[in-house]
């Protein structure tokens, strides 16, 4: 009975994480399109949400790899997964609160690593996976995107420099609609699978599925729905940061950041070295601004974003570890996770209420 209750809590928490993932990462897909006027905010977000949903059904081949690459799968229990998810959700909400785009995947990995270390010690961490699949890509992604978007915008300006501005702006805006669609599909495929993987892992650990089972259909549909609803809710603070606070971009810069970003993400996926969408898009925005003029980039805002990236893994890990430690005070049953869930719900409600009272510190872009 207790195991079933924990399983239900883990599934609900995983779907809540999926929602925050969509909510947090909406900006990656729509921010540049909205800020350059390529699409109205409601249309851009609705389109991204729909393609996130569709993307979740494209592939389930890597659904269970998110934690297995960095944590010894033998030590994973539903409570460790739960604590890791709480770490990830907490960091996603903290960075949303301050309008900082950070990687939801890194938050999830950090949370699971932290809770696994708290449960089983440092031996639970697979150093090769952590360094090779998380830390190095975290450094490579923004630098590559910065370079590619910088080169791309330089070439774009040279190619279209003498054309009429109307055609150029319209052309790049259309291009942004296509590239944002591609990004939304990629995001749905990549990120919804992480939640599918986490839920499947919990079902296997609880003995509800065989060790090599694929995610059941209800898991796929629930994960796709949660990320699409999160995307549809739109994380306006982060959209504002990515779309207008790093640089004031024109349509060509928006396309360079987003089109080059989509190409970078898919090229890296093809070579089995997936890069964070958040890091790529924000690195690309900085690169497309810096290539035009170094002073065009608000380096203070960019610095805050980089600090958030550096803090994501350790902060989510710390919260995950503390959460695991707290749940163990109440033994190995469902009481600890249930109490943490109630506390988390109270804190989230208080944070949203506080923000609602204060009003948004940054107004929604374009309405």
């Amino acid at each position: 009975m207790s195991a079933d209750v924990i399983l239900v809590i883990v599934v609900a928490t995983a779907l809540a994480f999926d929602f925050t993932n969509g909510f947090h990462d909406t900006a990656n897909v729509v921010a540049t399109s909205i800020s350059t006027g390529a699409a109205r905010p409601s249309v851009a977000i609705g389109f991204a949400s729909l393609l996130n949903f569709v993307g979740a059904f494209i592939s389930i081949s890597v659904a269970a790899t998110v934690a297995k690459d960095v944590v010894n799968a033998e030590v994973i229990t539903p409570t460790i997964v739960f604590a890791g998810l709480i770490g990830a959700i907490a960091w996603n909400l903290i960075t949303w609160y301050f309008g900082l785009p950070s990687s939801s995947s890194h938050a999830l990995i950090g949370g699971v690593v932290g809770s696994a270390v708290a449960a089983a010690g440092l031996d639970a961490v697979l150093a090769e996976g952590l360094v090779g699949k998380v830390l190095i890509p975290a450094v490579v992604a923004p630098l590559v995107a910065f370079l590619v978007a910088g080169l791309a915008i330089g070439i774009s300006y040279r190619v279209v420099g003498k054309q009429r501005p109307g055609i150029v702006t319209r052309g790049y805006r259309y291009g942004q609609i296509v590239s944002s669609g591609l990004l939304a599909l990629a995001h749905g495929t990549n990120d919804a699978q992480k939640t599918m993987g986490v839920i499947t892992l919990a079902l296997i650990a609880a003995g509800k599925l065989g060790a090599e089972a694929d995610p059941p259909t209800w898991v796929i549909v629930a994960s796709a729905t949660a990320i699409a609803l999160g995307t549809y809710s739109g994380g306006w603070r982060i959209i504002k940061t990515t779309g207008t606070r790093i640089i004031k971009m024109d349509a060509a810069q928006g396309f360079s950041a987003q089109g080059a970003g989509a190409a970078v993400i898919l090229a890296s996926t093809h070579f089995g070295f997936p890069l964070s969408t958040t890091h790529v898009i924000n690195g690309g925005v900085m690169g497309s601004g810096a290539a035009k003029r170094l002073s065009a980039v608000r380096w203070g805002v960019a610095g805050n974003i980089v600090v958030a990236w550096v803090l994501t893994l350790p902060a989510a890990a710390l919260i995950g570890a503390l959460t695991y430690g707290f749940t163990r005070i109440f033994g190995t049953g469902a009481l600890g996770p249930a109490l943490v869930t109630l506390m988390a719900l109270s804190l989230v409600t208080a944070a949203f209420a506080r923000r609602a009272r204060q009003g948004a510190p940054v107004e929604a872009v374009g309405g």
Partner: protein
Amino acid sequence: MIATLVQWKDVWQTVVASVVAGVGITFAFSVGIWGTGQFVELSRSDRQGAASAAGLVALLAFAVVAAAVIIGIVVMTQK
């Protein structure tokens, strides 16, 4: 220690492929816009031959971009 933990070949391949794909797609799309602009301008000045050539360049460039989008979707489905 880090040198032994990281698959540098994967990193290098990713960087090269990212630069080629990212810059290539943007270049192709920009050529498409350039061709469209030229097509409009040349058509207005009644230079149909040159306008057709520019239009063809635009079509080819957009076809490259469309192919890249399809390849991107295939990459997503096959990973």
